[in-house]
């Protein structure tokens, strides 16, 4: 009986070596498995600015943050020839938060403005094109943009005037400015970092987004960054032309 156990164990180990357990997906392969993939894309893009402006009679400190957070659906289709394309449905929530503090000999003004907006961008896959380790689709969060809410607050000391009015004016203006910032995004590029027979994914980027800019007349740099942009899709077991759920 002991020999039977030894033989069985040996055979078992042999087969384990032949049929290894499912491993993590391979890193980006040169050939992508044909099929219809469904999954998600998630991104956070932002701008950060801190600057100052001085005159003989005043000193102003200004800070501004624009933040765009998108979470949506990504669909990829790859044919047997390795060609394909992608569709996205990508709702984006956007915020703009700014603070200004001005000190003059007549007093000081401090105001803050917050603006919130949303959009939903849809791009449907076009004719199949060659798929490499990157693919790009149009993405414009300014399309379908609408402001959802905004608020402002202002405090002043001394004889300085116009603080409250400036804050109110900026609340209305910021809605337009936030849309202009969103309009700077025109595409999203997907980098395939890993792929397997069952799915693929990786990082994404917004071409032209990461940059620096100035906001005259302030000193300082407006930094455009992309702290997060990831995606992952899973091979659908149904064809894309089927409807309903299993």
């Amino acid at each position, binding site marked *: 009986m002991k*020999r*039977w156990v030894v*033989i*069985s164990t040996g055979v*078992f180990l042999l*087969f384990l070596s*032949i*049929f290894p357990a*499912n491993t*993590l*997906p391979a890193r980006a392969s040169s050939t992508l498995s044909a099929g219809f993939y*469904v*999954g*998600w894309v*998630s991104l956070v893009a932002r701008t950060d600015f801190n600057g100052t402006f001085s005159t003989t009679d005043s000193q102003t400190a200004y800070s501004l943050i624009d*933040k765009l957070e998108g979470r*949506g*659906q990504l*669909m990829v*289709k790859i044919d047997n020839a390795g060609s394909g*394309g992608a*569709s996205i*449905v990508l*709702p984006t929530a956007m*915020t703009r938060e700014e*603070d200004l503090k001005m000190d003059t000999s007549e007093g000081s003004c*401090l105001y*803050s403005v*917050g603006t*919130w907006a*949303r959009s*939903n961008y*849809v*791009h*449907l*896959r*076009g004719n199949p094109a060659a798929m490499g380790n990157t693919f790009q689709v*149009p993405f*414009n969060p300014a*399309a*379908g943009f*609408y402001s*959802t809410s905004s*608020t402002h607050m202002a*405090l002043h000391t001394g004889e300085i005037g116009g603080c409250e009015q400036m804050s109110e004016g900026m609340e*209305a203006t910021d809605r337009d400015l936030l849309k202009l910032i969103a309009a700077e995004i025109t595409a999203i590029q997907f980098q395939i970092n*890993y792929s397997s027979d*069952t*799915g693929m994914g990786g990082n994404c980027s917004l071409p032209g987004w990461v940059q620096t800019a100035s906001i005259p007349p302030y000193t300082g740099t407006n930094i455009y960054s992309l702290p997060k942009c*990831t995606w*992952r899709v899973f091979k659908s*077991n*149904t064809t*894309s*032309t*089927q*409807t*309903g*759920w*299993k």
Partner: protein
Amino acid sequence: MMKPSTVKPTQIALTVMLVGLISLACTLSQFATQTPISKITGTLQPAPIGSASAGQKTPASDASQEDITHPDPMDHLLALDSIQINLTSTRPTSSSQSTQIAIDNAGNMDVKFTENAPEPENLPKGFDPKAIKTDSELLVVGGKAYLPNDLDPNWMSNPIDEDYRVTLAQELHGMDGPAVWLNMLPDGSIQPAGQDLVGGFAVNKYIVNGKVDDQTISGSLWEEPKSDALIQAELTIPGALLSDPEQPEAGELKIVLHAQKADVPAITLPAAQVGTVQPQATP
């Protein structure tokens, strides 16, 4: 004295059978992750409806419309009248968002979005996080969406979306809704579990239990068979499916959908300012 060990023919046969079983198990496990091997009866099959449910913002070939234009039970829910819908998703980070939709008997909608309050460090200086309005509301009349806006006295004359039903359907098919995850599941992952009564509807209940990339998506669905509308859903999606497989995120995404029949008051727009035209709801 030790008993001499010999291998009997029956033991050899058992060994061969064991090898065969292991081989079969390995082969089946590979099929299980790659190819569906079974179909169930009593599936959620959408009733055919006349129009596609998705539009497009950018040009694309007709062939690509197949990606998102096929109505599913989530779309059929939005087609119901006199109903209240609440869709809430709680992410692994514990942040959450919810969408509340009231649809009156004319098909007009009141849509509210609620998100977590922003983190204090992301707020302008001096702002009280509790004072920040994190919800927004849209009125949908005649299919067009209007955003009540204190800064625009004529907001009721300026729709922000000409076909909001399409937009809403697309948003609810995002990663915080149930549809995208149900689409990933292999055949056989949704099994009938009898009849039930929820939200004033007589429904068929289904148990969800399926694997995507070795991660189990589980929960329950309740479908109204006549309209093929998804009336209720409770889904749990592992955080690992929301991240790079080599850096799996802990926790879960929980999606809860509840709909119920309701006597929703007629949803209309306030009177427009003089000189503007009041939009009319279309039947």
